[in-house]
């Protein structure tokens, strides 16, 4: 007597395992679709996280056991530290210098931590690898002189060892530091990997910080308190430190500095993650398409199984099993690809971050186990959500007795109306959301606006396919080749699945077009800005790191040499420090107003002549601010701005607001003379030369090379070189965004492949019939190819229209809300056309494998191939 298999096993085998084994490509491609989505979001998150890790986690890690710190823009004066003596009964007081310097051999930035080596072991427990040269206390003695503890990974990278010499650039001067011993960082991807430790006095000497420190760290002396009491102790310490602190100093906790740094890049991270998240949605649509097709295709099996007694739960379990398998595999693959993607895009992410927060040292890419788990869970969740609609269809499938074949039909008027109403509603919602302000500095509403537009792409997909199918059967197109008309009409047969596919491809196209529109507009705007503003003839700046960002400052001696040689009418040293407006950090910069006025090319928001604005600023002793600062704090020309500087509050009239695309946290520019009254001369960031005769520029450069060569490590650039480098730096900083654009193209290919395979599979009986009636393989291929091209064209049109609209939101709203800068909308049409053509081509090309698959099988085989 035959034994019937257990019903659930039967359901799983017939519904999941057998179809997957029979048509593995469809399953694999869907898995890849999910993987691309997961990989995209994970790669963006991991790389941007790693790029800021040394800044964010590094602040806390480097602080060791210090719990409170006192800082002051420009540095705390040593002569003011006596104020903290009364705190010493409850806290260890440790002065620190923290600088970033270029390690030329590494071509990258390292952190130089200057600490009091006599007492620092109580704050930072460092694992020093024993060096027999410095045993029994000699190490500390040597450290108190001139030498460094160097992290083992850095030494390995530079092929150095204890006893060797590490060269860094401090204030553009090469400094050779003896390596006394190596440190072994205690964790993977530790901020210590790129941090060297030297004595505070040595740090002051090489970085020109004599008489000042960067911060005072306070470590509570009592260390055996309960968590609650320890919290109270820290709060009490903070409060006492505030009372003791000199005017202008800030008292906080190390993690606040980390949070502050985090805030500087949060908009960037938020936007990148949100954009990459769209890839995930596209992946989700792919799963829905595959599962929906799978369900429709197996309606007869479902009906049979239900007749055999399979319950709704068992059918649902089978659908979810397939979805889960796709999700799990896609998620796992996505994690692997995401890590690889993160490695590939880390350099780009670092460049982007470094352009916002200069001097951030690199950390290794570190993948926490929970991030990998989240990636897999994301894939699983994504495909499970995507399974809901197909599941509904499966549940509605009646038993065999009532089974009817699905018939192709055009979209009803009601459905057209519904789609139109949805489209209008989405467009209105998108518009209104675009008008809403940012929340907490992040453009939530504007991103929702973009999302509404992307959903609109999906909504229009079904009516657009319907319209195409109607064209296919229209008499007016009777002259079309039969194959093309059949292909068009075929789209209406599997419209619901094809609509999902068109939506997925359209969304990917829209994403690619919107990003290229944003990057292109930004690039054009910056290009014009660079041409207009970079007017100096010669430029001196510190050497650059591999991120393209120059590290540190120039020695003030360079300014003295330049002034002696070329005079004060030509030389414009540009200084920069951090100051605070309403408690938030901004860049306070300074230049020689007199010199800049002569060649001023700074574009002002109100369109005033820059020369006039500078002339007024000289007369009124006023300040100028950039557009992001104006937008961030609502300060306009003519208003008074209050800036917290070491000596107290600086109140200045704002003479003008200028366009600027370099400092999104805000920038105010003072005349240099006043700046140097407020801050010690730590040396400028760069020095520009505005010559009376531009022709002399090469000669001036040669003279500067002669004067500075051998003593200082600087780049001396001519105007055109500087402009070129500015644009190179811009391009580098957008590498990560470009990666997203590439991902969206990959998603488009995967979407088309998935859907066409599914549609071909679904209609294999139709193809068999065509073949049985005498149709050739070529005709079958032609039908499928037309279907693919048609799908591509419809997707591209939808993606183009809505992608441009999303581009407008990105350029005009999201960028303004995130970074505070105004950009002109300048879509790069060539790039957009390239995307449109390539996706259409890809759709056509992607149709070929399924077409070949359909054509190569014998009609009889196809007709018999059912249960």
């Amino acid at each position: 007597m035959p034994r019937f298999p257990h019903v659930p096993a039967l359901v799983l085998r017939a519904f999941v395992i057998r179809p997957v084994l029979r048509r593995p490509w469809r399953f694999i491609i869907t898995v890849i679709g999910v993987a691309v989505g997961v990989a995209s979001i994970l790669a963006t998150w991991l790389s941007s996280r790693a790029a800021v890790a040394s800044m964010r986690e590094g602040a806390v890690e480097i602080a060791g056991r210090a719990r409170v710190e006192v800082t002051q823009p420009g540095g705390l004066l040593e002569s003011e530290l006596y104020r903290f003596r009364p705190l010493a009964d409850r806290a260890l007081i440790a002065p620190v210098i923290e600088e970033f310097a270029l390690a030329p051999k590494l071509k990258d930035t390292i952190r130089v931590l200057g600490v009091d080596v006599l007492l620092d072991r109580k704050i930072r427990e460092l694992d020093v690898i024993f060096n027999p040269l410095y045993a029994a206390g000699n190490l500390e003695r040597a450290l108190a002189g001139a030498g460094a503890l160097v992290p083992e990974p850095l030494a390995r990278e530079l092929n150095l060892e204890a006893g060797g010499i590490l060269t860094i650039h401090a204030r553009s001067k090469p400094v050779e530091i003896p390596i006394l011993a190596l440190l072994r960082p205690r964790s993977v991807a530790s901020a210590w990997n790129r941090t060297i430790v030297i004595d505070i006095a040595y740090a002051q000497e090489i970085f020109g910080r004599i008489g000042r420190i960067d911060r005072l760290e306070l470590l509570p002396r009592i260390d055996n308190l309960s968590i609650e009491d320890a919290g109270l102790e820290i709060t009490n310490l903070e409060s006492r430190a505030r009372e003791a602190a000199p005017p202008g100093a800030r008292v906080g906790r190390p993690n606040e500095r980390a949070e502050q740094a985090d805030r500087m890049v949060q908009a960037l991270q938020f936007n990148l993650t949100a954009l990459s998240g769209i890839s995930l949605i596209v992946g989700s649509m792919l799963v829905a398409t595959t599962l929906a097709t799978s369900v429709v295709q197996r309606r007869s099996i479902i009906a049979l199984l239900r007749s055999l007694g399979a319950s709704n739960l068992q059918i649902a379990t089978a659908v979810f099993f397939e979805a889960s398998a796709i999700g799990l595999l896609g998620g796992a693959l996505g994690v692997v690809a995401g890590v690889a993607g993160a490695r590939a895009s880390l350099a780009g992410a670092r460049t982007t971050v470094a352009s916002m927060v200069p001097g951030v040292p690199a950390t290794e890419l570190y993948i926490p186990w929970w991030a990998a788990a989240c990636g897999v869970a994301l894939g699983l969740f994504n495909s499970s959500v995507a399974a809901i609609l197909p599941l509904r269809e499966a549940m509605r499938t009646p038993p065999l007795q009532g089974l009817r074949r699905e018939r192709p039909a055009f979209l009803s008027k009601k459905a057209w109306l519904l789609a139109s109403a949805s489209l209008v509603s989405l467009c209105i919602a998108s518009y209104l959301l675009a008008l809403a302000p940012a929340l907490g500095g992040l453009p939530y509403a504007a991103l929702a606006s973009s999302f509404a537009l992307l959903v609109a792409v999906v909504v229009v997909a079904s009516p657009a396919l319907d319209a195409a199918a109607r064209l296919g059967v229209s008499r007016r197109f009777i002259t079309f080749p039969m194959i093309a008309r059949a292909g068009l009409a075929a789209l209406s047969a599997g419209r619901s699945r094809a609509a999902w596919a068109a939506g997925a491809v359209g969304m990917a196209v829209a994403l690619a077009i919107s990003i290229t529109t944003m990057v292109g507009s930004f690039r054009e705007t910056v290009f014009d800005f660079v041409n207009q503003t970079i007017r100096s003839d010669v430029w001196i700046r510190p050497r650059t790191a591999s991120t393209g960002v120059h590290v540190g400052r120039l020695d003030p001696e360079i300014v003295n040499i330049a002034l002696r040689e070329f005079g004060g009418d030509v030389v414009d040293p540009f200084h920069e420090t951090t100051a605070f407006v309403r408690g938030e950090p901004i860049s306070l910069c300074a230049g020689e107003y007199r010199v800049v006025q002569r060649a001023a090319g700074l574009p002002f928001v109100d369109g005033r002549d820059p020369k006039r604005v500078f002339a007024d600023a000289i007369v009124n002793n006023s300040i100028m601010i950039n557009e992001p600062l104006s937008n961030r704090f609502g300060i306009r020309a003519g208003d008074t701005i209050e800036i917290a500087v070491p000596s107290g509050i600086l109140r200045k009239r704002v003479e003008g607001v200028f366009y600027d695309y370099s400092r999104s946290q805000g920038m105010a520019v003072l005349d240099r003379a006043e700046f140097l009254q407020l801050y010690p001369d730590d040396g400028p960031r760069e020095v520009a030369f505005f010559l009376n005769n531009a022709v002399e520029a090469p000669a001036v450069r040669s003279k500067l090379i002669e004067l500075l060569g051998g003593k200082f490590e600087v780049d001396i650039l001519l105007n055109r070189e500087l402009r070129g480098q500015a644009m190179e730096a811009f391009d580098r900083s957008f590498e990560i965004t470009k990666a997203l654009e590439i991902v969206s193209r990959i998603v488009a290919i995967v979407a088309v492949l998935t859907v066409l395979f599914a549609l071909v599979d679904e209609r294999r009986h139709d193809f068999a019939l065509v073949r049985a009636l005498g149709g050739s393989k070529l005709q079958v291929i032609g039908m499928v190819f037309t279907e693919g091209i048609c799908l591509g064209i419809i997707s591209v049109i939808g993606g183009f229209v809505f992608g441009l609209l999303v581009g407008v939101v990105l350029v005009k709203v999201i960028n303004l809300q995130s970074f505070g800068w105004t950009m002109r909308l300048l879509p790069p049409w060539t790039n957009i056309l390239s995307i449109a053509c390539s996706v259409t081509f890809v759709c056509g090309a992607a149709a070929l494998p399924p077409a070949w698959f359909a054509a190569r099988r014998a009609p009889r085989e196809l007709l018999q191939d059912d249960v």
Partner: protein
Amino acid sequence: MFKKIALMSLLTIAARGDDWKIVKPSPDLSYPRDHGAHFDHRTEWWYVTGEVAAATGESFGYQFTIFRRGMIAGESRPGESALRPRQVFAGHFAITDIKNSKFTFAERLRRRGAGLADAAEGSMHAFLENWEIIKNDGGPIRVAASDAAAGAMIQMDLDPAKALVAHGSGGYSKKGPEVGNASVYVSFTRCATKGIINLNGREFSVKGESWFDHEFGTSQLGKGVAGWDWFGLRMDDGRELMIYGIRKVGGGYIAESGGTLVDRNGATRVFTKNDFSMEVLETWKSSKTGASYPIRWRVSLPSEKLNFEVRAKVKDCELDSRGTTGVVYWEGPVQSSGDARGSGFMELTGYVESLGGKF
């Protein structure tokens, strides 16, 4: 293979350069100027020990010391940071709760500068963070120290009852056979003391007597020296006695050991190693370091007809200061009985590791 960064022996390592001034016979001393710091000498300390009692019956011994150690001799280079550790200050502060036999100790270390550690050169004012010893013209010596982790605080005013005592020959106190093995050593041997002690949250108004030492030099201890045994006793008859025995590594005291007897009227008589003998009667072994300290002695000073016994009031008064000065020593209140009945302080060094060449 791993070694935590440890700076404990920093202060005991030979300092760089040989340009430190050495103490020579007949030093030119003038006070209050020489109460101040002598930065051209390598080592210096301001040392206060005393015993005080509260009206409630509790009695305490206390010790407060600020050490200065020169690390780099000579003038600063142009462009040199003021935070270069040319001079380093260390501080020790201990309270002995005699009734409860409890010893509390705290220590500090910091380089000179930044307004956090320094000493005046023309007057007595040395500070290390919130620890301070200061004497204004005509005023008392004020000592203040507190440490939240140790739960201890003192604030004392010391009023010298006698003139400043210059030990050795006019303050020139020979400590070894080589040139420079000497220090300038002066004391206020009896100071009426009043102030406040706070121990573990309990505050006591206290009164009693203290002993103040100020000493500086460059290479006080010669090679082959293990450490020293020192006593500062305030006798009930109004006299004070200071004895120090500089121990050789193999045992016994070097010839330069000696002491000073201060009469009631402040007159002093100096004696040398041949004038006294010391015999250990009892030792106490530290469970923390394993060192055995002699805590009961028989002392004989025949020339002064003094034959007496000295006994530690609390056995465990060991200071493990390897985090600052790099040495472990015993310092606590003692009582004497016999011909020199009274009380005072005893200091025992070099019982864990030899101190030869370090001071």
